């Protein structure tokens, strides 16, 4: 199968840069699988799990907290706000984020639009928490 170059970047460092055969990205409008020669697409990402299938068939999974992806036929770059391999994930990190979002929501000094976004973010985080706990 054709492979392409995948890069996972967080603000702190370049986490991953290798040849992969497919990547599953939790895009805002639903999960999508990116394979080689994908049409150029730009999409935002919700908190979720990125599944990377390397060229040699090895599968790694990363938890990301929002960001966006830049997909080209020749490669895919995922800019995540924060990304951690599932195996190294500290569950309290998610809990902390949920708490922080709840607190921000409770503060209630924001506009409606921002509030809906926060609520959505919270729902996504809770869902993610469920997935990780089950895993």
């Amino acid at each position, binding site marked *: 199968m054709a492979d392409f170059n995948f890069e996972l970047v967080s*603000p702190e460092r370049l986490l991953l840069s290798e040849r992969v055969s497919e990547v599953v990205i939790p895009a805002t409008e639903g999960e999508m699988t990116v394979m080689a020669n994908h049409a150029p697409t*730009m999409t935002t990402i919700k908190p979720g799990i990125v599944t990377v299938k390397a060229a040699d068939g090895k599968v790694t999974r990363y938890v990301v907290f929002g960001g*966006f992806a830049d997909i080209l*036929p020749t490669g895919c770059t995922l*800019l995540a706000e924060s990304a951690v391999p599932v195996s190294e994930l500290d569950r309290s990190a998610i809990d902390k984020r949920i708490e922080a979002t709840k607190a921000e929501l409770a503060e209630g000094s924001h506009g409606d639009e921002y509030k809906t976004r926060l609520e959505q973010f919270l729902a996504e985080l809770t869902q993610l928490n469920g997935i990780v706990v089950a895993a």
Partner: protein
Amino acid sequence: MPSLKDLKNRIASVKATQKITKAMKMVAAAKLRRAQEAAEAARPYSQRMSAVLSNIAAAVGSDDSAPRLMTGTGKNHTHLLVVCTAERGLCGGFNSQIARFARDHVRKLLAEGKTVKIVCVGKKGFDILRREFASLIIDRVDLREVKKIGFENADLIGKKIIGLFEKGEFDVCTLFYSEFKSVISQVPTALQLIPAAAPAEAVSTEAGATAIYEYEPDAGEILSDLIPRNISVQVFRALLENVAGEMGAKMSAMDNATRNAGEMINKLTLSYNRQRQAQITKELIEIISGAEAL
């Protein structure tokens, strides 16, 4: 003329100081290396971010759908200055350099009749700017407890700036920090955050691909999600540069201090030895002349 004992005490105290400055220099060197690594590791993200940003900005164009964070309020009246400095001193002219640069900027804006608001990041800048512009400082961010600057710290500052902007507290936001050129040279820099200076045209090696990009959701929405992120990234980069600069400045300051202490010890030792010799000679003369008198 200080007595022998005084000299001895002074030599001991200078030596103790030298030991401290030497240790601080070594600590700064180690921290500098780590800070440089962190700054380097963060580079791919900000590079790609700006590439993507200019890409989308070109797609959205300058129509009305562009988010306000990018176009600004259309006014140029109230300026917000975010001044990033270090939390600790003993790093040469590092902090005062940034503060002076920001101060000149504030004076210029005030002279033009603008309203100025200041947010201080770091204790030292706050201390310096407070003397002159205490009434203009609206907030300060304390990073003293932070061992290693993470993206969350920058994100917090970024969110604060955006919050202020949404409340209409300011029209233009400028970030002040020190760019890390090399260990011995840090250049204070001003960077306009809001309205975002139009990103310079990215080197379009993939120019062909830009035209047929598919956006999901549409480009405008991605852009409005991206720009707040970009502000945090810029702040993050500034903070990292600052840490590297601070450590560089501290290293060379401590190196100078160690060398000065060394010189001082040499001088003091010389005068100590002279005085001791003089005393011995004096005592000998007393003994000899006493013996001759018998």
